[in-house]
């Protein structure tokens, strides 16, 4: 049976892994390669690296670490942040990443998703969506890597994710901004609503604070994977313990 994926997310800034609360106040969490190896050994199913400065700064970011990560780990990984054209994506995939994830550039130019899917196959193309609940609606936000540049986009989340799928996305990561970094649990209502309108895999992001939050998100929303950062980086939830717990709750995981 296809198992539910546990995905540590490593926010990368200037070549180090960092973590902020609701996208602010970034703290140093360690070396990229050390953390990548640690999570692989602990049983992570996949890793996501978000270069959180890249998209909003509009500059080319040093991604020499992608190749080094690809050399040492033997599980799949995805790279996000600052991928603005097909050549940017090609370089990262050629360096050994399995998937690339785009967010703000896809909002600027939705056809970019189709270009990526046509060039590399949709299985490589992940679209990240930062979404916030406002007055009962789910709204997509843009340039969330930098608080001073974050803006509300014109898109409602439920229509945007369907469009993204139609344009060629092979997977969607939904980051629920109200929940991010506050460890109160995933946004179950929003994730369930998004899961119901999609046929591609959906990954939940934002809000994990306890083991039972993972159980809830898998049981109640049908998402395919759950992404988290600080609870893994801090060691608060060891991945192996989490997977044993989920298995004991009859959720299929790879052990």
């Amino acid at each position, binding site marked *: 049976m*296809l198992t539910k994926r546990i995905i540590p997310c490593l926010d990368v800034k200037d070549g180090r892994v960092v973590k902020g609360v609701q996208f602010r106040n970034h703290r140093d969490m360690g070396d990229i390669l050390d953390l990548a190896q640690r999570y692989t050994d602990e049983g992570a199913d996949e890793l996501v690296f978000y270069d959180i400065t890249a998209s909003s700064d509009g500059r080319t970011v040093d991604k020499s670490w992608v190749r080094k990560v690809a050399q040492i780990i033997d599980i799949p990984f995805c790279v996000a942040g600052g991928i603005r054209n097909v050549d940017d994506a090609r370089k990262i995939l*050629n360096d050994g990443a399995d998937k690339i994830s785009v967010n703000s550039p896809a909002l600027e130019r939705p056809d970019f998703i189709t270009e990526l899917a046509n060039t590399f196959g*949709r*299985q490589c193309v992940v679209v990240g969506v930062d979404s916030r609940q406002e007055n009962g609606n789910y709204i997509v936000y843009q340039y969330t890597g930098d608080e001073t540049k974050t803006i509300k986009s014109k898109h409602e989340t439920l229509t945007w994710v369907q469009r993204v799928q139609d344009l060629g996305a092979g997977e969607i990561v939904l980051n629920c901004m109200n929940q991010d970094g506050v460890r109160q649990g995933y946004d179950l209502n929003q994730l369930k609503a998004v899961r119901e309108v999609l046929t591609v895999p959906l990954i939940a992001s934002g809000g994990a604070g306890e083991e039972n939050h993972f159980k809830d998100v898998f049981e109640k929303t*049908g998402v395919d994977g759950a992404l988290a950062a600080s609870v893994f980086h801090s060691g608060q939830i060891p991945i192996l313990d989490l997977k044993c717990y989920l298995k004991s709750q009859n959720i299929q995981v790879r052990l």
Partner: protein
Amino acid sequence: MITVVDSGGANIASVMFALERLDVAASLSVNADEIFNAERVILPGVGTAEAAMKQLQKLNLIECIQSLTQPVLGICLGMQLLFSYSEEGDVDMLDIIPGQVKHLKPASNKTIPHMGWNNVSVQFHPLLNEVPEESFFYFVHSYYAPECDYTIGTCNYDDPFSAIVAKDNFMGCQFHPERSGKVGAQILKNFTEIKL
């Protein structure tokens, strides 16, 4: 020494790095003579069947690959290419293993592509030495080869399909052994040691 067909797929670097981790010498090639004379050949592949067949045609590699007698391992799309025909782009393929590759259409509300770790029941074959029954492998695909006479590993996504195939010197994995942890590495290691 392994020769990896440089078919332009996005997983080539991952395959090369996985062989590096096993301390196995490998080189990339699109040269028919080199591939024909290689000790072992890996045919990686990510993308569409149509694009991959066009690429092999352009490189004049179709007859070369069909005529190989040394161990050959197709990975992901590279495995699918070994079959006769794919619904993906309505394209004739290498026809080394008889059968058709079909579009995944799970009956229930499962997602497409089939993406993530799934368990495989394995049969006895040298490629699968020391691979425990029901090991998990990493899959990413929207098309599949149904179970057939040459299936040596079966996975289920609503319906059973070929996760691993073998016919004479030709072998193939639908999953990505280069990204499937220790069991994936074991399969690559077995391939580098296989005696026909």
